[in-house]
């Protein structure tokens, strides 16, 4: 017995389809599907396609690849691909429904489409039906944004650089901008510890003994504050807090606070970035720490959200001012249905809780546009700017229409 799967995807038509366009496409697709033993269905509404393909695993995958290359549509996103025990659309070589006409009839725009099919049978309550219902409710519809140009951001938000004079300690900093896409402005910079111009944070951290980490961590933040102030930082300053420093937490706040004051950086401009390991080691200490920081006006960002213990349960215990999405969630999100669904859920939760979301590690324009369309406003990543060694690099911002 061959391995049956179904693959469900959505995509955006590259031009508005007419009835004529459809019948041309369908005639060919139906006969090819019949010969390949592929069944399923296709919906089209206002420029969005939604298709279920079912059949033997390798045949479905190969066909989906062919379809992906088809210039009549783009942004094809696999929502789900999984084995099935039996077909939901066995009667149909890509018909339009096994749901009742009443079920689907109220999806506007499809009426023309349905007149083509004469036979309606009942679909069982499997995944395909549920996804159709979601589609009916307006989910999973992609459309093309127009702008894809790329241009440097106006320099207004970027402070002018000053020279730094001071003996060089064992480590220094690079700064990476965080941009607000809707305001087209830099909102702040994250300070990233560096040993030298080409290295990474890991180079520095490896050299530090476990027992010294707390002290290092505190020093590093003070230095970063001083550095940022000398560079003329105008917006927020994001500072990393390492998991081991919880024991000395109150002292950490005090010393950062004092340095910030001395450097003329208002405490409300400082954002502490917590790694998820930190959030579990001692939940009570974290809660206390957070209340204390809040009272002082510091803000908290939970980094790497979606990995390890930085998950949903954490938001039940405390609500930070912001979270940064884990890289795995951002990577290629434009073509990964499950990641998209998870992100939409997170956006819902965070907007209900007033927690801002930063998309970190954004590398491609496709990732950016997808996230932007879902209402994400804060971004950080190579697409905008690499970390600037001992400098505040100005970001590039895609010229999307607001």
């Amino acid at each position, binding site marked *: 017995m061959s391995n049956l799967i179904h693959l469900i995807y959505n995509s955006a038509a590259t031009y508005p389809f007419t009835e004529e366009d459809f019948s041309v496409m369908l005639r060919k697709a139906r006969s090819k599907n019949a010969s390949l033993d592929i069944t399923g269905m296709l919906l089209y509404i206002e420029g969005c396609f939604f298709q279920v393909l079912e059949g033997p695993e390798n045949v479905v995958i190969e066909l989906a690849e062919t379809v992906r290359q088809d210039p009549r549509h783009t942004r094809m996103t696999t929502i789900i691909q999984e084995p099935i025990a039996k077909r939901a659309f066995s009667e149909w070589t890509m018909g339009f429904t096994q749901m009742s006409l009443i079920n689907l009839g109220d999806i506007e725009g499809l009426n023309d489409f349905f007149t083509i099919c004469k036979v309606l049978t009942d679909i069982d309550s499997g995944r395909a039906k*549920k996804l159709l219902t979601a589609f009916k409710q307006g989910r999973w519809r992609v459309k093309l944004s127009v702008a894809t140009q790329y241009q440097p951001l106006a320099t207004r938000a970027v402070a002018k650089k000053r020279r730094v004079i001071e003996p060089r300690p064992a480590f220094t900093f690079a700064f990476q901008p965080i941009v607000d896409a809707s305001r087209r402005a830099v909102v702040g910079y994250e300070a990233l510890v560096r040993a030298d111009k080409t290295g990474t944070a890991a180079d520095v951290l490896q050299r530090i003994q476990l027992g010294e980490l707390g002290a290092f961590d505190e020093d590093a933040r003070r230095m970063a504050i001083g550095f940022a102030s000398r560079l003329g930082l105008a917006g927020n300053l994001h500072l990393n807090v390492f998991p081991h420093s919880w024991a000395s937490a109150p002292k950490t706040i005090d010393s950062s606070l004092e340095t910030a004051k001395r450097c003329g950086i208002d405490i409300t401009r400082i954002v502490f970035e917590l790694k998820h390991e930190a959030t579990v080691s001692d939940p009570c200490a974290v809660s206390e720490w957070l209340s204390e920081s809040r009272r002082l006006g510091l803000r908290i960002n939970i980094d790497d959200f979606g990995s390890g213990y930085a998950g949903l349960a954490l938001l039940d215990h405390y609500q930070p001012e912001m979270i940064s999405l884990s890289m795995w969630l951002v990577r290629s999100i434009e073509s990964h249905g499950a990641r998209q669904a998870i992100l939409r859920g997170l956006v819902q939760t965070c907007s209900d809780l007033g927690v801002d979301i930063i998309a970190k590690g954004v590398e491609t324009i496709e990732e950016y546009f997808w996230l932007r369309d879902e209402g994400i406003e804060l971004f950080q990543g190579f697409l905008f700017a690499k970390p600037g060694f001992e400098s505040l690099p100005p970001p590039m911002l895609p010229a999307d229409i607001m």
Partner: protein
Amino acid sequence: MVLEFTFAYQPIVDVDKRETHSFEALVRGPNNEPANWVLKQHTTAQLRTFDMDARLRAIRLGAQLGLPCHINLNLLPDTMADCEEKSSVDALQTMVEMAEQCGLKPDQLVLELSETETIKDFDCFVERANQCRRLGVKFAIDDFGSGYSGLNLLAEFQPESVKLDMVLVRDIEHRGPRQAIVRGVLRTCEDLGIDIVAEGVETIAEYEWLRNEGIFLFQGYLFARPAFEALPTVTFP
């Protein structure tokens, strides 16, 4: 070492249809000792065999009791996903055959894996899970929203249902953050065609809040307590 154990069954109800959707088989000692009592008597090495054996027994007893719907069975993912171990394939095959001998169809079986459980060999797990799915067996993620890497798991593996952890359900009617989390989970699951089961529902207020958000599958004391070696009847609110 053969330890005596048996099962209690607790219904998962569909309040839309007002019918029992499934029974979850919960392992118990011979005198209705709790699950932990049974688990404690097994070493880690024995757990694998126990895990496989327990499912067979839960199915058999369920069938004897005249199970009319789905049956939810707990699964240690590593039992199933040990690609070195050929017996792990056979075990699943055996489970399905056993169910059929007892007069149950494979699509009545729902395997629950806990979000708190880490899966050592994920690719292998997915491969095995897919073998089961081809036969019609369904999957659920248990304790969702409570543990480690739940979102990660969901990104790579979409089960037929997700069971909301009871921590999130408790007092939800007046806990804003929990409500926000549950709304987000609902959104994600709707988009992926995954059913949500609210676990551990104890009060009418919890039930009503969740019901209002569109959840229709429930499990908890409000509907029925687990019944020792029996399929309990349900009280619908």
